[in-house]
């Protein structure tokens, strides 16, 4: 029934191609990331991708689906990579493996595989890890503390052995929260300044990749721009009310993976909204939640939870944001 009907021509595009472009777009961010936080990032990435491919292969076999058609779509690699670059570079291998399994097996395939996952797979993996291993997930090395490949490999294989003071660093968002919690009113920012600088540059790497994706028409402006503007506005409001207790809006945008979220996480097509208006509502919702969780919640980083929560709302958002059909307005 479906053979040989019009249209007879097609644009040469494929899911694989889309995913390939997303991977390309991640490269600048990843390079800067490696520069600041060391080769551990690459170990994490490789471990995540290998785990993703192996587990996807097994599941496709079990589900009786064509391995050739589905594994080459590249979506597992993208999800695994997004997860890997959200995890600190000094995390041990098993963290990566567990997180990736959550991403691929539970968030993707238990929900029906490509195209059917309700939740953003990378964020499900991330949230699972953050809840289960909060200590590891929030421990970052001091930027440009050049560890050799060998040392990174050691940490990757056997975990972080001795706790070297000054080696690890809290994220700025985390740090301020702790200080405020301890009752400190004047906060010495020097202890996290270098970290903040590093994430700023990494963020700009993702921004470049994002612009590339927009230029290549893989994403539209709606999600990232709305997210960034909304986050900026909310943070500004609080900051203007009390600039000591609340951080300035630029810190919110340039740290904690906000830009990664704007261009790569919320732009996951499968778990996101499809209509232009829906995208605006979705991104606004994520921005509000991210801010609230960061500032008032129990976790230093709120992106994963915010995205997962908004994923639940997608069917509703889509339903009530349908654009006007030609001639029906």
């Amino acid at each position, binding site marked *: 029934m479906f053979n040989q009907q019009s249209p007879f*021509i097609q644009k040469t595009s494929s899911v694989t*191609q*889309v995913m390939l472009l997303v991977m390309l777009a991640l490269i600048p961010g990843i390079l800067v990331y490696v520069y600041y936080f060391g080769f551990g990032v690459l170990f994490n990435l490789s471990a995540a991708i290998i785990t993703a491919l192996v587990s996807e292969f097994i599941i496709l076999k079990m589900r009786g689906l064509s391995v050739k058609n589905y594994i080459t779509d590249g979506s597992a690699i993208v999800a695994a990579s997004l997860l890997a670059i959200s995890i600190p570079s000094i995390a041990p291998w098993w963290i990566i493996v567990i997180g990736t399994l959550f991403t691929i097996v539970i968030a993707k395939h238990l929900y029906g595989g490509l*195209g059917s996952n309700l939740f953003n797979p990378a964020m499900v993996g991330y949230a699972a890890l953050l809840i289960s291993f909060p200590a590891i997930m929030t421990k970052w090395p001091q930027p440009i503390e050049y560890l050799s490949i060998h040392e990174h490999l050691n940490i990757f294989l056997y975990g972080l052995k001795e706790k070297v003071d000054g080696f690890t660093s809290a994220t700025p968002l985390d740090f301020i929260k702790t200080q405020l919690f301890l009752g400190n009113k004047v906060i010495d920012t020097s202890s996290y300044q270098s970290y903040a600088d590093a994430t700023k540059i990494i963020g700009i790497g993702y921004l470049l990749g994002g612009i590339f994706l927009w230029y290549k028409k893989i994403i539209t402006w709606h999600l990232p721009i709305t997210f960034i503007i909304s986050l900026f506005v909310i943070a500004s409001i609080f900051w203007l009310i009390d600039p000591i207790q609340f951080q300035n809006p630029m810190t919110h945008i340039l740290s904690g993976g906000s830009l990664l979220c704007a261009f790569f996480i919320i732009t996951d097509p499968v778990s996101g909204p*499809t209509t232009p208006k829906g995208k605006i509502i979705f991104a606004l919702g994520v921005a509000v939640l991210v801010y609230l969780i960061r500032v008032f919640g129990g976790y230093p980083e709120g992106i994963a939870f915010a995205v997962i929560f908004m994923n639940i709302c997608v069917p509703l958002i*889509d339903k009530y944001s349908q654009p006007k059909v030609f001639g029906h307005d």
Partner: protein
Amino acid sequence: MKIIENIFKFNGGVKAQTRKSISTKVGIQKIGIPKYLKIPLRQHIGNLPKLKVKEGDVVLKGQLIAEADGSVSAAIHAPTSGKIKSIEKILLPHPSGLPDYGVIIESDMKDKWIKKIPINWAKIGVEATIKALQNSGIVGLGGAAFPSHLKMGSKATKINTLIVNAAECEPYITCDDMVMRERSEDLINGIELVESLLGAKNTIIGIEDNKPEALSQLQFHTKSHKNISIKVVPTIYPSGDAKRLIFLINGIKIPKGKRSSEYGIQMFNVATIIAIYRYISFGEPSLSRITTISGNITKPQNYEVLFGTPLKALINQSGGQKIKNDNFIMGGPMMGFKLPSIDVPVTKAMNCVLGAEPEMIEDKKEPLPCIRCAKCAEACPVSLQPQELYWFSKSDQFEKAQEYKLFDCIECGCCSYVCPSNIPLVQFYRYAKSELISEFRAQEEADVARERNEFRIMRLERERQERAERNAKRRAQSSKEEKSKLIDEKRAAISAAMDRIKEYEKKK
């Protein structure tokens, strides 16, 4: 003449490779008169016309062979002179591949015209002219094949603007382009004529910006025409779709189910306008058209072909396929259909025939699931949500699909064209539409049947009663007489038999 600059842009559309230049290298050529012409009686939307000839009749070029039956119908004329060889079912260039009635003419190769009678429309008046147009056999030559006189004659609505569709947005097709390059003068004369017949005040020609030669011809010939303006629209498929083109030109969105005439606009295709002009000013009915043959073809170009000419003649003249696969597509690659057979005649709707490129017909890559990337929604010129329609069609939730305006879909194919998962979206919509339509029909039939049934039961009951009454009466009246009559008859028969036996024995 003026060039309109305002810009209205509809959502989406696609920029496909147009591949038009391959068939515009040489001018329009003629296909010689074939020995036999098979002329289908139904080459238009509407009723089968009434046959006016019989087998063995000799006909002249331009002679009426079938007359329009009712207003939604179009006449058919003999494309050349010759003899009616037979009237039989022939294969038609239609996706169904079903045969339909046609007239087969054996041409005498003289191509002798019947007396041409031009129409002095100024003298006989607009109404009579439009009536006469019904016998011209002219239908929309852009491919829709809607009888043209129907678009002329509505008194209920006032037409202000005539829009000439010269967009020709489908890839490969160049017949309108070539017509404008070579016959712009006829076109402009035709525009003046049609504008007057419609009572319109002005005319706008909508043309895509990929036809500079045609455009300069138009500009040249419209120099002194104040009432004609030209709107150059960007080359984005489907800008030539009637409602999209009207929007591009004057920003009016005409919804599904409404006609442009309700908005004071009437649209004609370039070739149709020329056909109307030739009929009224020269008395030439619709006997031929320009057809593009392109794609996987040795010499892609445009031909002027008599209706009824075997498609094979066209294919042979253009050198046949470059890569042989014997698959041909009628219409463009976006909205055309694969011809079930090439043993078909050229018809009024045949604006283009494509030799199928191998990649057009080979089995497409297996589709992946929809990844909700909304590329299709971005491309949909009707601003539908193709991914939702796909989901509802696929899961047989046809009512939901309808709620999401399935029937507004114009089947332009933009969504399928861009889908990275290779999903044949339009085919799902066709399926859903046909299911819904048969559902409506079944519902209608059921309603009618229920009514009929109730009525039938009532009738049967009444009839039964009447019959019973009648019988009772008759019985009461005639029972005695009948019985005695019967007995008499039997007696007579018995005595006759006895007599025969007696006679027989006597003979012995």
